């Protein structure tokens, strides 16, 4: 079975632009979470979705938004990019939210 997939792998954007990152969970998993990992730090929770409903939101500004589709895939959108948004964005899926999280390879976003 395929693991969690994310696209694109790498992305370079300019300050002020917006970006959309995509994630496909493991087949059968209904929950998707998004994390931001800045170099040298642990992942920081951004959003969790379960059955297309937002279940939780971390301490991120409203420039960050997400949604989950009927096929359980998810998008993370970031508007008005700042240099500080440069990071590895990780998607994790799980069966119902709690428990073991399966992380995707991540999208490396660089904002210049």
């Amino acid at each position, binding site marked *: 079975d395929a693991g969690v997939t994310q696209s694109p792998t790498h992305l370079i954007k300019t300050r002020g632009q917006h970006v959309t990152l995509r994630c496909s969970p493991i087949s059968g998993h209904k929950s998707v*979470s998004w*994390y931001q990992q800045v170099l040298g730090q642990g992942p920081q*929770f951004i959003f*969790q979705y379960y059955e297309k409903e937002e279940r939780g939101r971390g301490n991120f500004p409203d420039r960050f938004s997400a949604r989950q589709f009927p096929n359980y895939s998810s998008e993370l959108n970031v508007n008005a990019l700042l240099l500080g948004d440069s990071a590895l964005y990780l998607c994790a899926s799980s069966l*119902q939210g709690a428990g*073991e*999280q*399966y992380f995707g390879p991540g999208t490396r976003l660089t904002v210049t």
Partner: protein
Amino acid sequence: GQQVMQIPQYQHVQEGEDFTTYCNSSTTLSNIQWYKQRPGGHPVFLIQLVKSGEVKKQKRLTFQFGEAKKNSSLHITATQTTDVGTYFCAADSGNTGKLIFGQGTTLQVKP
């Protein structure tokens, strides 16, 4: 808000030596998870601890959950070069899957 502190930040050992990383939470946890991230990779789940005082072993890895469910440790016996990476603890205070990660301990193993 909830904080998870992990020490040490870095650890360099000679192959064959033991290694331990410690994790402390400011609040009582429903469970704690441990992940390993290889350089350039993504976090990979190692284990979840749920019960107070729980001890679990995976080959050379031993995981402990404190009696008060506020701290945890990961001990690796006789490290190998394949153990290289960053080890993260991740706290789940409400058993929701919304994880608060520690800063990680990066392990380097000299052959």
